[in-house]
């Protein structure tokens, strides 16, 4: 009973929040409603007994990813409305509905066959975090390490791409040097 109430409550909240994200014209509303939707999604993980995944969802998405987005939005002018010219909304909604129907069918096919058996069953007598650790560090060790390398590469790429003009440190320079650097920057821009 409680599971059903929680499921429907959080399903409603998540759908509303993500709809706001998709349909709003204000970038800040989109960002905050996306963050709220991420937290509501972590509630599903807790209902499903995937405690560790829920904690990771909150930490990574609403902690790291949302902070990155907020940081990036400081570069852009977010106070004015997002101007977009879409060609025909009917086609977009039609395509979205058709693809959703297709995905329902794709998901329903293995459910109908009912032949799925557990490759890595949940370990008995341990909590979710422990069971996740057991599987992650035995069966999925190599993908885990590859994911770590991928995150490192992404971090280096982000620093290199975003920090182009950060080769001179403003804290170590004298005032005249800073003015000179600003002037040369303006010349480069114009």
């Amino acid at each position: 009973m409680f599971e059903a109430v929680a499921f429907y409550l959080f399903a409603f909240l998540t759908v509303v929040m993500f709809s706001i994200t998709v349909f709003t014209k204000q970038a800040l509303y989109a960002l905050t409603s996306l963050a709220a939707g991420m937290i509501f999604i972590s509630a599903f993980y807790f209902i499903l007994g995937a405690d560790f995944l829920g904690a990771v969802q909150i930490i990574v998405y609403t902690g790291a990813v949302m902070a990155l987005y907020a940081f990036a939005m400081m570069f852009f002018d977010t106070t004015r409305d997002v101007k977009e010219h879409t060609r025909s909304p009917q086609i977009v909604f039609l395509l979205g509905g058709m693809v959703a129907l297709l995905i329902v069918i794709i998901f329903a096919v293995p459910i109908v066959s009912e032949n799925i058996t557990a490759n890595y069953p949940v370990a008995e007598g341990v909590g979710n975090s422990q069971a996740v650790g057991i599987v992650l560090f035995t069966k999925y060790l190599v993908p885990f390490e590859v994911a770590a390398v991928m995150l490192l590469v992404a971090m280096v790429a982000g620093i290199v791409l975003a920090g182009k003009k950060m080769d001179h440190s403003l804290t170590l320079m004298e005032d005249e040097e800073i003015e000179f650097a600003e002037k040369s920057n303006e010349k480069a821009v114009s």
Partner: protein
Amino acid sequence: MEITLSHYLVLSTILFAIGLVGVMRRTNLLMLFFATEILLNAVNIGFAAISRYYGDLTGQMFAFFVIAIAASEVAVGLGLLILWFKRSGGIDLTSMTSMKG
């Protein structure tokens, strides 16, 4: 009134459709990124639900890897976005038509 796997899959599909509509509707690149985050989260719900109802932890493992990929995608994508904004002064998709054939 019991919540079954189908409930979660339908919810996941609804969220995925919302994300798809966002991807097709948006032309602002930052908003497009938000829509892709919705897509990834919708799939994660499906993975976690299947993992629960079949007693198999593989779904949760895939959800972890999807989260890792989403994090690195955001880092690289936002770096590129900031670079593009510095060069062109806007992040609209329609301004990226330099590869017109």
